[in-house]
């Protein structure tokens, strides 16, 4: 740690401040250079002070003369600190210097705005002399504690991180070799550094940064975990906690000078430890002087009691699922009870039964709602991606979200993230015209639009991704498919068939593989992922105008209203929401077309088949009065099939069939029916997709 160059720099700076010829902006520049030198020589705390002064001195209220005096004062103190290796002495500093060191960024912004009007010359100069630095300050001004939501989130997370880090540090006291623990603390501090930086909480960010560097050395084994090191880390945690408490109360970082002293000492300690492995005991004494005398216990109590009334609660997912499963059992039991009560044929039995049913239904609704989260959460993240990718590709594009409040099961949402990202990237990469001029030539606005809309429709959630790009290039897809041997050379295909080709494995029309899309793994994986969530995906392309991709997914994964049917000895359950109509044999109007029979449904005729045929099992035992025809909606079409009997409708809890039977994709699961029998819940979309292939 050579000191002479630094001492020289400080001397130069001090002289500059005394002279009348050097502008404040240039002094600021010199200070920044000094900051770098201090950093490079492990004077982290001093670098922090110098940097703060460098950035804020331009906006400090008052005239140049006072500013110069303040900066001279700074130089003196820095010199003292460097030579004596004592911490930076704050005693009796120039008030302007104090302003420069502790003013939070938003106040700096406010000053700058008023100053700019009065001192146009000074305003012009910063743009020339220190253009980048100017931009830095703007960055700071933009991200600040003024956003209450952001601040709240930060405070909650910070508490959690600190709790976690503390636990791990205590574990390290007993087992200093625990690598996982060190890693855990590192991660917590790293997160704190990031989020406090974003919010402009510079002292916290700086402290976290220095702590993080030390933890890195600990983690890599370059530094031994001595009691001093542990004490330093714990002291840093304590300080951070106290800050969090204070910010929570005042809703902004403390502007007092005192609040700067403690972190600087801590930074000093951490830095020394990082470099030398030991540190001067005196430094710890300085720290103790600064502590307000609160014990850690007091701080913890303060933290919990000042925490705002929790509006939400973190609940273990497993527990929630157990609750939902049990409520499922409750629903089944209620059905059985209702049946028994119905047999009693008394008014009281009937009214009690109705009340019970209502309560159970309400509980069920509520429980299902527990796992529902608004779709908007995931869509907001796409916003950032669209911005970045469209900039990267040079294709200006705006992202519109509709129906962000539409709720969906949390597990479903997690499974949707990947497919959505891929589809949106596809739109950006392939769908939207390569250049703005192409769009203008086509009579479209310069900025492309990608719209994602979510809505509830008949028990499903429908998510549509539309763009106003070129749509699918059918010639290219067709020729590419022939090239790859996916289809025979002169096979005639309809437009819809060509569109479906994009779902074939290994398909892509992109000339080169970019990291965005075009690797050809895309659409078939997307479809698989969507089908795993028991959903469907459909593509509607309008060449030249754009493309719509429609995803349809079941709303609730576990409890549905089911129509219980029988084919032979087994029971099969059809989701009632999908059943459009039930036609008795006697009411069926049939026509024959070759070998096929079609049944009349409203104004059209639908091919009729048997459920046993669709499932590929032996035909059932049709009763004397004939089978029952069910008309259902699936894959955006209507289908009709026959079952032996329809037993009725009831609430069904879909239970997974288990990993051993996961090849049964056309069954959404099994359901416990009265009498202990297990019926199979039909997954209509898969059943008919398979039938179509």
């Amino acid at each position, binding site marked *: 740690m050579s000191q002479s160059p630094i001492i020289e720099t400080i001397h130069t700076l001090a002289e500059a401040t005394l002279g009348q010829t050097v502008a404040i902006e240039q002094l600021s520049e010199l200070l920044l250079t000094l900051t770098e030198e201090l950093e490079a020589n492990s004077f982290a705390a001093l670098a922090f002070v110098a940097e703060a002064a460098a950035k804020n001195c331009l906006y400090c209220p008052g005239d140049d003369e006072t500013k110069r005096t303040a900066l001279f004062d700074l130089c003196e103190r820095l010199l003292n600190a460097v030579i004596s290796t004592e911490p930076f002495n704050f005693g009796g500093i120039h008030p302007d210097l104090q302003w420069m060191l502790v003013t939070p960024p938003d106040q700096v912004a406010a000053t700058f705005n008023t100053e700019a009007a009065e001192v146009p010359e000074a305003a012009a100069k910063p743009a020339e002399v220190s253009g980048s630095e100017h931009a830095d300050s703007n960055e700071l001004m933009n991200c600040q504690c003024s956003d209450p939501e952001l601040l709240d989130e930060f405070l909650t997370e910070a508490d959690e991180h600190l709790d976690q880090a503390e636990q791990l540090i205590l574990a390290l006291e007993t087992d200093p070799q625990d690598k996982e623990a060190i890693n855990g603390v590192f991660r917590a501090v790293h997160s704190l550094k990031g989020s406090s930086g974003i919010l402009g909480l510079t002292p916290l960010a700086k402290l976290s940064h220095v702590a993080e560097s030390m933890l890195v050395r600990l983690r890599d084994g370059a530094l031994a975990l001595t009691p001093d090191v542990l004490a330093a880390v714990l002291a840093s945690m304590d300080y951070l906690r106290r800050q969090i408490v204070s910010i929570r109360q005042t809703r902004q970082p403390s502007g007092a000078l005192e609040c700067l002293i403690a972190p600087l000492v801590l930074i000093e300690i951490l830095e020394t430890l990082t470099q030398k492995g030991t540190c001067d005991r005196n430094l710890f004494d300085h720290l103790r002087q600064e502590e307000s005398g609160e014990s850690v216990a007091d701080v913890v109590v303060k933290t919990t009691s000042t925490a705002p009334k929790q509006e939400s609660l973190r609940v273990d997912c497993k527990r929630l699922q157990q609750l939902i499963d049990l409520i499922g059992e409750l629903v089944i039991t209620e059905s059985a009870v209702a049946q028994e009560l119905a047999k009693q044929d008394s008014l009281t039995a009937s009214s009690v039964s109705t009340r019970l049913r209502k309560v159970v239904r309400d509980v069920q609704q509520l429980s299902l709602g527990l796992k529902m989260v608004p779709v908007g959460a995931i869509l907001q993240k796409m916003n950032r991606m669209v911005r970045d990718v469209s900039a990267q590709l040079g294709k200006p594009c705006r992202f519109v979200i509709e129906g962000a409040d539409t709720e969906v099961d949390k597990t479903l949402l997690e499974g949707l993230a990947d497919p959505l990202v891929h589809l949106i990237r596809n739109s950006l990469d392939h769908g939207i015209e390569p250049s703005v001029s192409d769009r203008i030539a086509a009579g479209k606005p310069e900025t492309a639009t990608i719209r994602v809309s979510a809505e509830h429709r008949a028990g499903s959630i429908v998510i549509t991704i539309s763009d106003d790009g070129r749509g699918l290039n059918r010639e290219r897809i067709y020729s590419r498919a022939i090239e790859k041997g996916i289809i025979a050379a002169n096979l005639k295909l309809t437009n819809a068939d060509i569109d479906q080709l994009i779902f074939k494995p290994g398909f892509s029309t992109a000339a080169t593989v970019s990291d965005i899309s075009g690797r050809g793994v895309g659409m078939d994986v997307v479809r698989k992922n969507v089908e795993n969530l028991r959903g469907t995906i459909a593509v509607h392309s309008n060449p030249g105008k754009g493309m719509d991709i429609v995803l349809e997914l079941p709303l609730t994964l576990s409890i549905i209203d089911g129509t219980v049917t029988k084919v032979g000895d087994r029971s099969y359950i059809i989701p009632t929401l999908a059943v459009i109509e039930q036609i008795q044999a006697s009411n069926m109007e049939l026509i024959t077309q070759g070998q096929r029979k079609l049944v009349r449904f409203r104004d059209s005729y639908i091919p009729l088949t048997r459920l046993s045929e669709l499932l590929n099992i032996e035909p059932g035992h049709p009763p004397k009065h004939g089978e029952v025809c069910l008309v259902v909606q699936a894959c955006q079409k209507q289908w009709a099939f026959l079952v032996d009997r329809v037993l009725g409708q009831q609430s069904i809890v879909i*239970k997974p069939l288990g*990993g051993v039977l996961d090849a049964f994709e056309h069954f959404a699961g099994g359901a416990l029916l009265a009498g202990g029998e297990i019926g199979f819940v039909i997954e209509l979309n898969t059943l008919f997709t398979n039938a179509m292939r």
Partner: protein
Amino acid sequence: MDTEQLHATTSTASMIPHLVFKLDGSEYAIHVKHVREIITSVNPSTVPGAPDYLMGVINLRGKILPMVDMRKRFDLPVLEDDGRDCFIVLTLEHDNQCYELGIRVDAVCEVQRIPESCIDSISDLSNYSSQRLSFQGVAKTASGIKMIVDSTQLVEQLRSDVRLKLQSSAPSNPQPSIEELCLS
């Protein structure tokens, strides 16, 4: 630690507890960590399109379990159901997923601690087509020879048999597809 104690500790360390069950006169063993419980009476609901050794599925405290008839599975003659069957509920973790199933056996004997030294892994025995039989080894103990069942292989075999059966019975459709016939 004196030599006797040392011997005792090392012996217990390499004694692996297995559940021993009987099937058609022979004894088999399965690692205790895969055994969840033993149940006696079931009434499985048959599964359409599953291999015939799959008896069906049952409900065990709210969970659906497939039941495998081990006699059928090992191609042994099937006995009349005399109400004395036992079913062992197996559970295993594989590929980050939990698999559970029940197997029907003639009788459950005991839990036996088999010393590792008595176990020969299946690669030593070239006579058995061990893949199909899902065995991972043979234990030669004082009370006789026991085949050790490999639960993971059992489950994998089961899954692939199910898949194959479903695929092979998928209809080859010479008739025009349903879609094409939809008149509007």
